[in-house]
């Protein structure tokens, strides 16, 4: 099968809308199709990766476990925008999985290299 570079871009916070969750489903399927998948978290998207989600009270399934499964699917290119973290008072230590923290410009460059950018 042809392999293409897919980047899934997340710019929305979790729970307020379903986009983050359904984006993750796309990532897992793309990985199952053995595509070259990466994820980029920008703007409020970085909140999806924040540690310690306790979603019982809002009765919506938490993301955290699924992020942990990404490695099993060989999805290891997970880019997070440094500036978006800083703006929100977060650091890489606040995130639930290991990520590559990059500058905006660096993320922009990787975006340019993609065949397909799916944004949610």
């Amino acid at each position, binding site marked *: 099968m*042809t392999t*293409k570079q897919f980047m899934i871009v997340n710019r929305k916070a979790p729970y307020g809308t379903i*986009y983050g969750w*359904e984006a993750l489903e*796309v990532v897992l399927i*793309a990985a199952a199709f053995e*595509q070259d998948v990466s994820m980029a978290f920008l703007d409020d998207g970085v909140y999806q990766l924040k540690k310690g989600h306790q979603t019982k009270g809002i009765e919506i399934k938490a993301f955290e476990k699924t992020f942990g499964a990404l490695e099993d699917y060989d999805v290891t290119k997970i880019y997070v925008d440094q500036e978006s973290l800083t703006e929100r008072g977060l650091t890489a230590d606040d995130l639930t999985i290991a990520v590559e923290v990059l500058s905006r410009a660096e993320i922009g460059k990787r975006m340019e290299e993609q065949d397909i950018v*799916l944004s*949610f």
Partner: protein
Amino acid sequence: MKFAILVSEGPYTHQATDTAFLFAQAVLAKGHEIFRVFFYHDGVYNATRLTTPPQDDRNIVKRWTKLAEENNLDMVVCVAAAQRRGIVDDGEMKRNGKDATNLAEPFRISGLGQLIEAGIQADRLVVFGD
């Protein structure tokens, strides 16, 4: 050139589906091909045949149907998103023990893999959402 289109919003609330439709029309008018239109998130609501807008408003569902029939378009509704939102075809009705179907022709319900396949097969994939 082969295009694929992803529609991530439902009709009427967001302009996204209008833009996607007009874009799709323009793609075909320019002599390009549309490999697939994939409906995800609330985009699955574009596929309910029960939509009944006022007579002086556009019928977004019928408009997709007409475009698809005239151009032999493959219009795919994501099964997981459809199940969450109650978009049902015959197979889904039987599988999930429902008492009705509401999927418009010629939409079909299938897996998310169809979106990835569209990305692989098409030269361009454009996302319309909010």
